[in-house]
């Protein structure tokens, strides 16, 4: 049990990247339309986020500097403001979507209108951010989020045609004639961007400081990264696989969380559905916490305010005020009646700005002996890091044209 809690930070961080409300639905959409032909993107994205999350965790543990502090130090005020604006908007849109996601998951459980759940969900997120210790928060949400493992188990109970599933993994690109290459690549970029979304490193590096990691805890940081993110990827791929097995052959289009849960209902009936809904609630709630805190972390670290849940709210007043305001704004956006899942699609645009401007400074600082002493990056890490920066840049440039051409994947 202790071992499980030791990786809670990694697990919670990965939930926001791989199984938040946008990804729960997107994975299912991808599975139902493209089968497993896009699985390779999730694998590439996982390697990328592992690499950079570990770098940001190492910088935080060794130098005590969280990611947005070093972004401002290395990029200067102007580029850092560009990144802050983009990252903050991603956080805000994602936060809006996640609170909507909690409400949608609660609707599945209770049949009560999501609009009635919005304020309850936002208030619950705030209470946790306001009063609950960081370690308890990450342990509880990380553990409950594991309920989504039901999707991985379901694959075996659905008795799929393994060879067909396997051949999808290798068939590139889409085997389906009615899907255009543009929408294939749009979803490739969206999945990659989601796996490497910047709030993960903001949250992970700040969490490392919340947990007071020092240079001696580097092994723990590595285990967090190597367990948390691949686990998130497995959950996300399982959801896609379930959709590919059940929904794809029947031509069922995924438009909401309800269809995401359908394969589980087929495999395990009611009990499975209850577990899946528990996982949905925990994952969206965990992701809400992650993005709420990330919006506070980014602002506070850019402006040099005191921050962190290890302080009393009164000792980090602007940090808490910023998070309260974010929640209120997110709730306001939701009450206009937008579809929470579609909100996450807009954030792809801002990722194009935020991704390169986040990962470049991390790579630079991880090579600076003034911060890192003898813990600077090795050659292999740098080489792989540079390759990923190139991929990130290509994905960033391609994101917006692909979104326009495909009408956001429609």
């Amino acid at each position, binding site marked *: 049990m202790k071992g499980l809690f030791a990786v809670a930070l990694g697990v919670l961080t990965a939930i926001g990247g791989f199984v938040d409300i946008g990804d729960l639905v997107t994975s299912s959409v991808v599975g139902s339309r493209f089968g497993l032909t896009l699985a390779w993107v999730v694998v590439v994205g996982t390697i990328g986020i592992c690499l950079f999350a570990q770098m940001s965790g190492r910088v935080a543990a060794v130098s005590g*500097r969280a990611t947005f502090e070093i972004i401002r130090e290395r990029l*200067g*005020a102007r580029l850092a403001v560009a990144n802050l604006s983009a990252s903050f908007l991603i956080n805000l849109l994602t936060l809006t979507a996640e609170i909507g996601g909690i409400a949608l998951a609660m609707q599945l459980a209770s049949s009560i209108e999501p609009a009635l759940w919005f304020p309850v969900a936002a208030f619950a997120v705030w209470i946790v951010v306001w009063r*609950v210790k960081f370690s308890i928060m990450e342990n509880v949400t990380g553990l409950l989020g594991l309920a989504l493992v039901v999707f991985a188990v379901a694959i075996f109970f659905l008795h799929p045609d393994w060879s067909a599933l396997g051949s999808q993994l290798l068939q590139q690109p889409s085997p389906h004639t009615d899907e255009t290459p543009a929408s294939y690549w749009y979803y490739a970029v969206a999945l990659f961007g989601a796996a490497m979304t910047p709030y993960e490193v903001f949250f992970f590096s700040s969490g490392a400081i919340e947990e007071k990691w020092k240079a001696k805890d580097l092994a723990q940081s590595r285990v967090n990264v190597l367990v948390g993110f691949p686990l998130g990827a497995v959950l996300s791929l399982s959801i896609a696989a379930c959709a590919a097995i059940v929904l794809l052959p029947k031509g069922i289009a995924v438009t909401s969380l309800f269809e995401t849960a359908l394969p589980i209902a087929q495999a395990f009936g009611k009990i499975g559905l209850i577990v899946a809904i528990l996982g949905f609630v925990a994952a969206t709630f965990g992701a809400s916490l992650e993005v709420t805190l990330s919006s506070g972390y980014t602002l506070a670290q850019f402006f*040099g*305010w*005191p921050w962190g849940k290890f302080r*009393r709210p*009164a000792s980090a*007043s602007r940090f808490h005020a910023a998070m309260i305001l974010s929640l209120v704004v997110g709730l306001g956006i939701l009450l206009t009646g937008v579809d929470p899942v579609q909100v996450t699609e807009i954030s792809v645009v801002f990722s194009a700005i935020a991704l390169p401007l986040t990962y470049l400074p991390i790579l630079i600082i991880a090579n600076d002996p003034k911060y890192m002493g003898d813990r600077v990056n090795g050659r292999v890490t740098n080489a792989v890091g540079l390759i990923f920066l190139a991929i990130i840049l290509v994905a960033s440039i391609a994101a917006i044209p692909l979104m326009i051409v495909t009408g956001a994947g429609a």
Partner: protein
Amino acid sequence: MNDRTNLPMPPAVAGRVMDAGLELLDRQVLDPEGVPVTTVDELELTTPDDLAHLDPEKPPVVQALLTGPILMTRIFGGRLPDSRFVRIPWKVVADVETVVKVGVAADSLDASWTERWVRDHVIARIPGGRHDPE
């Protein structure tokens, strides 16, 4: 301008020479307890007597670290009236590492007035605001 030989010799001062733009600007300022005060948004230098002909013997020195609204004019241009400058005088700076350390408590500096204002008027008034998380 790139001809390094034309540059004046650095003044003979005790201590280490640093690139203020690189090692002071945009750095985090911490108080002795490790509490963040602000980020260095801009530097205030002494104005030389004759701006056209700088005297290499008496180069401008850093008078204060600036913060607050000055960040907006640094990014977007324009000028800020002197009354809106928020200064951390250079004499309270204790050390410059990867962060700038000051020798006085964060709460005693003008630079943290917004933190105190939000604390006293908003956060401390919400139930639980003054307690440790549980």
